[in-house]
Each structure stands twice: as structure tokens, then as C-alpha cells.
């Protein structure tokens, strides 16, 4: 039985300890905002925060989470207010198909938490998520916009 703190709430999941966090979130707990893209830590679609650090949940066994606090896309807004990255995403009309965007947003939110005013080089280094629709240009602009907000 895995006991997890996700978005400030305690959850229990009766799963094999080797199950990646991604599938516990999606299948066991029904939190499907976190996406499956590759399963091998390549694409970033499954990015969540573990104690504030962006982590690719497809490659993190649930047993390795311990008592770390997990934040998913569903928990990024606080008190009904969108995170400023989400707000910038809305204003910048960033997503195309949107499938990669939960992961993009989680990676960008972690970047801003660490570097409130990221340079283009910071963005290049932190944002390694894959977007097949090719929203990179809008993603970059929205991160800069959020930094200024």
C-alpha cells in the first residue's frame, strides 16, 4: 500500500511498489491530467513536482516517492486561482493539441520557482519537453510573459 501526498491530500493506492507514479496517478487515482508520452523519461509529458522538483513520473517507481509531496497539473492552481504560468498560457494561446502541455506547464512552473526571471538559455536548459505540434515559440514567449507578470 503506497501512501502519497498529492496536491495537499493524502491518497492510498494498493499497487505493486514498482508501478511508476504516472500510472498510479492516472489509473489508480484517476488523475489523468498527467500524460503518458514515452514511458522512458524522454518527452516530459508526465512531469509532476516532487517536493517542488520537476520529475518525470513515468520513470519513478511509486515506492521511491516516500513521504515527498507531489504536485500535479490538477493541483497547480491555488485557491481557485490559476498559477501565473497557466494564466500566461491562456493569454498567449499556447497549446495546440494540448497533450504535452500539462508537462510543459509543470516544467515551466518549476523553472520560474527556481529562476523568477529566466533567460532564453535558462529556458532552453529547463524546457526539454517534447511538443510534436511545435508550440516551443509560444511556450518561450509565455514563460517570459509569466516572469514579468
Amino acid at each position, binding site marked *: 500500500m503506497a501512501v502519497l501526498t498529492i496536491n495537499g491530500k493524502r491518497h492510498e493506492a494498493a499497487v505493486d511498489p514498482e508501478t511508476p507514479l504516472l500510472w498510479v496517478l492516472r489509473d489508480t487515482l484517476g488523475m*489523468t491530467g498527467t500524460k503518458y508520452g514515452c514511458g522512458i523519461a524522454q518527452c516530459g509529458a508526465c512531469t509532476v513536482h516532487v517536493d517542488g522538483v520537476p520529475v518525470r513520473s513515468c520513470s519513478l517507481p511509486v515506492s521511491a516517492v516516500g513521504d515527498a509531496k507531489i504536485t500535479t497539473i490538477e493541483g497547480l492552481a491555488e485557491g481557485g486561482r490559476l498559477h501565473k504560468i497557466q494564466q500566461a498560457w491562456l493569454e498567449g494561446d499556447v497549446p*495546440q493539441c494540448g497533450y504535452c502541455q500539462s508537462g510543459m506547464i509543470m516544467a515551466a512552473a518549476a523553472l520560474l520557482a527556481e529562476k523568477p526571471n529566466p533567460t532564453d538559455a535558462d529556458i532552453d536548459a529547463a524546457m526539454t519537453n517534447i511538443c510534436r*505540434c*511545435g508550440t516551443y515559440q509560444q511556450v518561450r514567449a509565455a514563460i517570459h510573459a509569466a516572469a514579468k507578470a
Partner: protein
Amino acid sequence: MDAIASISRRSFLVGSVAGAFSLGFDIPFARSQGTSAVREINAWVVVHPDDRVVIRIARSEMGQGTLTGLAQLVAEELECDWSRVSTEFPTPGQNVARGRVWRNFSTGGSRGIRESHEYVRQGGAAARAMLVSAAAKRWNVAEAECSTSNGVVSHAASGRRLRYGELAAEAATLEPPKDIKLKDVKDWKIAGKGVKRLDTAPKVDGTLVYGIDLRLPGMLTATIRDCPVQGGKLKGFDAAKVDRMPGVRKVVAVDGTAVAVIADSYWQARKALEALPVEWDMGPGAGTSSATIDAMLTEGLTAENVFIGTRVGDAKAAIAGAAKVVEAVYSYPYQNHATMEPMNATAIWTADRCEVWCPTQNGESALAAAAEAAELPVAKCDVHKAFLGGGFGRRGRSDYVRQAVLIARQMPGTPVKLVWSREEDMMHCAFHPVTKCKLTGALDASGKLVGLHMRISGQSILASLAPQGLQNGMDPVVFQGLNAGGTEGQFGYDVPNLLVDHAMRNTHVLAGFWRGVNLNHNAIYVECFMDELARAAGEDPLAFRRRYLKPKHRAVLDAAAERIGYGKPVPGRFHGVAQIMGFGSYVAAVAEVSVKEGQLKIHRIVAATDPGTVVNPAQIERQVAGSFVYGLSAALYGECTVKDGAIEQTNFDTYPVLRMDEMPHVETVLVPSGGFWGGVGEPTIGVAAPAVLNAIFAATGKRIRSLPVAKHDLRSA
């Protein structure tokens, strides 16, 4: 969500074909189907008493923004309040039941808007006329005295006003008008504007339910492995080895070629499938490799028996009599679509009914596939379309829908969600076809281009996926962008002697529609070779092209060249140009690159498009930028190779794609010349690779004739 609410959602159409399965289900994809039982004004428009307007969209939304563009066109003619507009997808089953009132659901070939703009605008205009008619009746005045704006009908003479929401119920009972006059494009207020997409909010908070996210009561999850070699068969498997693993419910054969594990969750299904001993009959493709395919295509470059796509004058004679002959052979590898969301579909089957939930670019063919696999009449089946996590042509096929239904049939009454692994997705699509092209150009003594022969050798998409579309064996789609005339993809250069022919060489690896389709390699072949010819003629590549280009082709190239400041790059950087026509639009690009110690950097791209008519410039800009990511991913890295008949690349580690740090700045220039409607999702992919390849040549003197760029050494010799 209670059952009543979900039923009313489903029965928004008179005589709805809603099935028994919807009872008690929170209707998935409800966000897109937020209608209550309010009566529609017509198939396209529902107006609620509180003035909310729901516009029905038949085409699929896969990120390309068609949903928003089509809604803009309907809203424009309807003259409603744009801020109150939402959309919903009718189901393919409803389309069948209503005599195809929404016409074509198929979403590919950049056709979503250009093929349906007229009838969707007519739908909006008809609804507007009915609302006016209802107001005129109520006021007892002539319709001609009434005007509409922003969701309100006004009668100027008396100063009376009625909101659409107050008129909708009455309007819905009226006869539709006979004569509909559409607005002039220059009078547009909603269409033609760069309004934001309508579907963004649920994409930033994780609430949008994609097909892969679907959860139904009692649902199980399956994952599948198809024979690694396309055309091979499943020989057998040892279910006893895995059927006691946690969560496993059943191990099933699918269609004689695949095996699937059905379990409580994806991870359990996947682990069991990995542990399952399977025996394959790899079939006739097993002996094929990239090298054997290459040899077959090379033979086609000089073969006799070919299909002629374009013939003007006598190219062979012109070449024979040329002062200078230039010849080059190019090649283009297999590519995978690699949509971010892997293939998936959920099905529930009983002997009496089958319903499917899936991301699809073609709802109607998904429905046909579901009915066939279910062995039920179409009227007893339906497909609920999800927003797509990428399409790029991959989801025009319904292979995964068929599989999902065949699996669900082995669990009658239980919803089963089939989820492909990325690995399965990478090995089993219909790939961007492989082709080679031998180009022979004839220059006269003055350096003038007097003849050109393009021999394409390689796969036909139609032969793979839609052989009924072949014309006396010929695949006309092969000649995309190389047609002598027509409005779809006309060859841009006036060359007095031109021959384009095709040696069809098919393999067991399925070829399919991949964003940009055949334009991708055709544009590389023509546009890189034009550069070679220009150099051979001792002329600047832009100036050389301009001498032969037809006016509209030249105009977009000029627009791109002017914006980037062609010929005056930042010191140390180099320009490369390309143009092509495809999907009804004229496009051109100039790339600015540098190559330092073999390291390529693409600094800047200017891309110009003449789509005739612009419906949403902001979304076109995004499509164009995205098309460069897609096109450059393929050009720089993309290659699916074949070994023992199977595709070797199984994930993004071996099939790398462009990421943020390599994304050049893309500037979009729109030069709509009016009078036609061209597509925008795909055409600019065509110019992405050749513009960059030509710039690499300018920077290094290295002419890259086979992709991807990554396998070439760009260091100076």
C-alpha cells in the same frame, strides 16, 4: 453527473441515436458536448435562452485550430456574440442518422476549412435569417427592416430589439430560407481575425479528457503487440505464463496478427504483455532491410515502365541537346508521425450494440471500422470523438479502432480501453513513404534552364492505404506540388520541357499520410536541385528561381526574401531559400543558418504563405511555426530504418525530434491574394527542409542529398 443529465446531453438531437450504454455514464468528452435539450435552429447552430451559442463542428480538432476557425465562420454569418460561443462534435452515427447533414467528417490534407467553408457559413447565415424572421413576425414588420449585430435583432424604425436567446425557440420552428447570400470577406468582423482558440482553458489545467484519459464504470485496460513485421502473423502465445499476474483478466488474439492483454490497469497489462511468450510468423516482409529497399528504389530511378505525372514539351530531347547537364539523386527516409498521445480507443460491445470513444481524424471511417469489427449494422454503432493529442495524418486510419472493438468483443458488456505503448506506436503506423529522386536538368549555353526530368522512385500511399484511388495503377498523389496545372499543387517553374514520372516501388512497410504528405520530399527534390542548377548556371539561387517562377509562386518567395533581408545575413550566417505550392496554398521560406565546427544552428526562418483567404492569422502563425518543428525534426533527425522487416526505432531515444533549444525563431508572413481558399496546416512543412538544406550548402559547400542531416558530417573537409 446523474444519468438524466447525461442522457439529455446525448439526446440533443431530435431522434437521437443515443444508445443504451449511455445510461448512468458520465458522458465522456462532455466538455465538448455541453448541450442541453434545447432545440437546434439548424444542424450547425443551437442558441440557448441565455444567449449561449453552441456551434457544431464536424471536423476533428487535433491542435490545428480548425474547430475555432470553423466556429468563426459560422459565427460571422450568424452575427452572434463571439464571447458566448462554444462548440460540440456531433457523432458520426448522428451524421448517418440525419442523412449526412454535417457532410464530411474527415480531417486531413489541410481540408478542414477550405473544403467546408461554404456550407458551414451557409448554416450560420440560414440560422441568422430564421432569427430575423422570428423577430419580424413578432413585431409584425418586414424582415428587410430588421438588422442583426452581436446576437441581437433590431428594428431601427421603432427602436425595438430582441436577443437571439429570446427568439431561438421560435426560429427553430421556421422553414430555412431558400436563398442565402454570404458576406463579402472584406465585411468580416469575427472571421479573418486572430481570435484566441476556443479550446484552451481545459488544456492548461489538465481537465481536458483525451481518448487515453477516458474512464468508464467497470472499464478494463488492454495493451497490444502486433507482429513486429507488418504483414506477419501471430502463431501462438502462452497465456498460462501470465494470466495469474496481478490484475490480468484475459489474454486475447486480435485479428490473427496481434495479441493483447486485458487487465485492471495499463501498467498491469503492460507488464504481463512484456512477460508473455509469443511466437510470430514474420511473413514475407521478414527478409527486407533498409539496404534492400534502397536497392529496389535505385533500380526504379532508371526503370522503363513508369507512370507519367507531368509532361510539358520534350524533356529528354532537351537534356540530350543541352549545353550543360546537371544530375543529382536525392532520397527521403521513412518517418513516423509520433503523435504525443499514443494510439488508443475504448469500446463496449454487446451482441446488439457497439460504442467507441476515440481520437480520430475521420469519425466516419472510424464508425465504419467499428461496425465491421463489431459485425453489427452501422445504425447499432456509434463513435464518440475525443480531442486528439496530435494527428498529423496518423489518426485518419482506424486500425486501432478495429483492434479495440475486436478486443471488447471478447469481454461482452465490459468497456475496454486499448492503449498502445509508445513502442507499439513507433513500430506500427503507416509511415511517411520512402522515395528517391533522380533529377536531370538541362541548361543552354547562356545558362538558361531549358529542360528538367524528375524521376521519382518509391512508395505509393494510395497503393498502401486506398488502392481504390489509383488511376489505372497510377498514384496521382505522388506528384503533389509537381502538377502541370490545377489549384491544389501546381509546379511553380515555367520550364519549356518538363517531365515528372514515377516508378512505383512498394514494400511491405505500409506508407501513409504524414503531415505534408508527398510535398515533403517533392519540395526537397525540386528546391534543392534548383539551387544546384542556379550554382551550375553561376547565378544567385533567388535570382535564378525568380526568372522561371509563376507570379503567385514568385510573390510569396519575394515576400519571404524581403522580410529576412535576403542576401544580407548577419555576418557568419547564410541564407537558403525554397518555395512550393501544396494543399491549395503558395508558400516560401528563407532560412538563416550558421555552421561552426560542424555544428548547425538555425537562427531564423521567415515563412510566407498565400492561402488566398485568411480565417485566423494568429492560428496560421502557430500552424506555420509548428510545421517547421515537424518538418525540421524529420530533416535533422528523423529516420525509421528497417531490419529483418521490422522498424528499428521504438521511442524518442532512437527517433529524436526537435526540442526547445533548437527551435529557430519562425516569422510568419501572410500575403493572401484573395479569391481562393488554401490550407495552412501542412504546406509550409514542404519548405522547411529545403530552405535549411540550401542554407547549409551556402554555409559549408556541402550538398546534403539524403536525410536526416544528423548522419552527415558538416565539418569543412
